[in-house]
């Protein structure tokens, strides 16, 4: 694989902002979607920018991930009417975007996604409390647990700014899809530098991350085994459903659990209480999470947004990540990897029948 050199003397963020500005000026994009520091300066928000001047406080990789970029895309690409957009996302956000595209919630045709090698994000609560910097690849791990075991920290976009295996002050713009190459071309950049160093470095890191990941999954699996383990795990859940509301894959306007279907006369709840001796309220606390797993775990990209949003400090993302890994293996499906490969549940292979029958 080959890529185009990009100087990052003033840091990757600056370099990517410049790239975006050039794209706007060159007409390669009509607008840019990027994380921008909010007025109060205490957090970041995705902003769709038309004039390059407003990218002053934009960051390619802010220390935190307050909103999942795919959600930002979902909120407007349906109404974009062919306007060319350049979106700077984290790899997990880019992958979520692809999932949402398959589910018709995001229209990617006129969007070019730029990703960077992502060392992870710091927990939202920690950042809001006393700020913080982008985690380092090595050394003291300030990153969220889910990031520390993330094996999809690179790629995912149409054009990828690789820093791994690159010299200080320099990055490599690697076109991963057709649109990426088109963008390079429009900016008059040539992908002539060899990307092997990046690929090797990434591969190495991936391996170690995978190890850490499966280890973490094993431990967690043991902890949440059985319904009681699960109930215990969600002991502090207050049913605010923040995890769902911020999840990029949970795109439903109204969640199955919020519908009227589950309502029942008080007498029934009393009946349930009488059976069990005592009934936890609100009812269906654990059911909600199980149901959500059933609905989205195939497309879960382990972005960790749910965990950041949980006021009860429940390790939602870690649990969902573990289950997702299993279901995805079952259908040997990699969410967000390829826009062409359909979400398994919507398709049916004839052999599936025989697997059951055999």
């Amino acid at each position: 694989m080959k890529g185009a050199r990009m100087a990052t003397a003033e840091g990757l963020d600056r370099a990517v902002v410049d790239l975006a500005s050039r794209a706007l000026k060159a007409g390669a994009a009509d607008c840019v979607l990027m994380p921008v520091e909010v007025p109060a300066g205490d957090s970041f928000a995705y902003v769709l920018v038309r004039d390059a001047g407003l990218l002053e406080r934009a960051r390619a990789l802010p220390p935190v991930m307050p909103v999942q970029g795919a959600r930002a895309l979902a909120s407007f690409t349906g109404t974009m009417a062919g306007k060319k957009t350049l979106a700077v996302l984290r790899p997990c956000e880019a992958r979520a975007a692809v999932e949402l595209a398959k589910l018709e919630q995001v229209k990617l045709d006129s969007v070019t996604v730029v990703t960077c090698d992502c060392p992870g994000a710091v927990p939202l609560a920690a950042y809001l409390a006393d700020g913080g910097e982008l985690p380092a690849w090595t050394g003291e791990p300030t990153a969220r647990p889910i990031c520390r075991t993330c094996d999809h920290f690179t790629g995912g976009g149409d054009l990828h700014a690789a820093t791994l295996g690159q010299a200080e002050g320099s990055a490599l713009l690697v076109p991963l899809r057709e649109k990426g190459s088109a963008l390079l071309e429009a900016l008059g950049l040539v992908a002539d530098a060899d990307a092997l160093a990046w690929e090797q470095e990434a591969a190495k890191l991936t391996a170690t991350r995978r190890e850490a990941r499966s280890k973490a999954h094993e431990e967690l699996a043991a902890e949440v085994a059985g319904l009681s383990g699960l109930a215990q795990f969600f002991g502090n859940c207050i049913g605010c459903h923040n995890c769902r509301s911020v999840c990029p894959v949970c795109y439903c306007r109204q969640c199955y659990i919020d519908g009227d279907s589950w309502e029942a006369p008080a007498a029934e709840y009393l009946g349930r209480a009488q059976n069990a001796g005592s009934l936890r309220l609100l009812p269906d606390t654990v059911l909600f999470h199980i149901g959500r797993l059933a609905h989205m775990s195939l497309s879960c990209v382990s972005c960790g947004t749910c965990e950041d949003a949980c006021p009860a400090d429940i390790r939602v993302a870690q649990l969902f990540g573990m289950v997702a890994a299993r279901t995805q293996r079952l259908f040997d499906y990699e969410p967000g990897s390829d826009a062409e490969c359909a979400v398994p549940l919507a398709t049916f292979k004839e052999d599936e029948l025989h697997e059951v029958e055999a």
Partner: protein
Amino acid sequence: MDKQIGVFVCECGPNIAGNVEIDMLLEAAASMKGVALAERHKLLCSPDGQKFLAEKIAEHGLTRVVVAACSPKQHGPTFMGVCERAGLNPYLMQMANIREQCAWIIEDKEEATRKALRHLRAATARVAHHAPLEKLEIECNPDVLIIGGGVAGMQAALLLASGDREVYIIERSDSLGGAAVQFEKVFLAMRSAAEMIAERAARIKANPHIHVLTGCEPQEVVGFFGNFIITVGRPEAEPQQIRAGAVVVATGFELLAPEALAPYGYGEVEDVLTSLEFERMNASGKIVLKNGQAPKSVAILHCIGREERRYCSAVCCLYSMKLARYLKDKVPGAAVTEFYSDLCIPGRWQQGFYRQTAEAGVEFVRASGARAIEEGGRPAVKYVEEAGKENSRTFDMVILSPAMVAPHDAGQVAQMLGVEIGQSGFYAEEHPKLAPVSTSLEGVYVAGCAQGPKGISESAVQAGAAAGKILSSLVPGRKLETEAKTSVISALLCQGCQTCLKVCVYSAIRYDEAKDVCVVNEVLCKGCGNCAAACPSGAARVKHFTPRQIGREVAEILR
């Protein structure tokens, strides 16, 4: 509305009464929410029992009915009928199976009674949430469009055309007849195909109700059973719109493309022909080699492409024998050898045909991996003997009998129609055994080789079958009745993710671009529930199986 539920428990003689405390059920029922009446009867399904039920419904102005008796499979329709006759919407009745699921399978009477009570509670809780359902009646157009004017298409047309039904055949080529025209003789009686085709074509021409559009292809298909609108592209003319109630797909087959025959020596070795080329040569009257001389030895290779395609084309064996018979007739003294892997000659007379062919001096060699190669400037056949030994023999001419494959554009046509293509590339039937000519889309039928490789008579039978299905379901002047338990999609909750659309096997769901929601066509929907199961936000629901109805039922069962 204040629900007036009537609960009726059937004793079924000793079958239920013998092992379930019916009085106890009645007592419990009387105190259930919304229950206005709880009665028992010796045998509710009997004429007397049905009368009793009808009277009670009227007398007490019941708005819901629960029948605790046998399996709904057995008497569901019976009691729905009673309700209907008593002026109560039949969907406001729910059965609790306390015979097969309780009385008959549980020894202990108390336990059986307990379980029966659960079922009764569940049914009563469920029925309270039932809604009256109505079947739609829609006007329909009895005319039929047939795509493809081959043997199947012509057969179907002749059966369907009548005084009160017009039939349209659209044929891509410029004449009727399809693949069969290329065959001088069709096997069995070795009758001339050309004659048969000509005779049928003449009858079609003479029939004022059959309209043949040659050189035409379908461009767009909209609508549904009873009301299709098909746009047909015509050469040097405006596309024409045809309205029809049903469509028969009779697009036939193609033979394995020459490219695919290269591994078998075709194109590489001289005097290696495809069966079709040989047919033409035979029709032209001169069976000769490139050098103009008549062949002294000819090899015919069966099963060309069977392994790659993973199916047997069913007719090649006989077909190859037919070629051998041509040769024996027209090139006296020529030695003919058939290389086959399995003789596939099902049917009453086929084995006889094989015997006669063998008796005519045709040599049959069982071999695997047979293909044509060049050996000393002559075509030869390389093959593996049954014993496993590799061998090769030289011939003057080698004829390949390639597999039948689906038309190259079957995929597009299928997509246009909204029907499915099977693993083998041919049109998928609704059910491989019970519905061989129906497709997943009601009103679209498939006949002949479009459905899979087969001979001329089987094709004709399928054409007849398609005609039979249409004649019996699409009767001129009769309205179509649709399923009542269809699914509905809430425009308020739908996210336009189109997952439902992907899982709908009846093509009953379409996506409304403007509103960004999916919409169910109640005429096509069969209420299978796939969409409801797949929809994550519960926007899609099946009438009579709403989460609320099922939820209440399950809650009571688990209580």
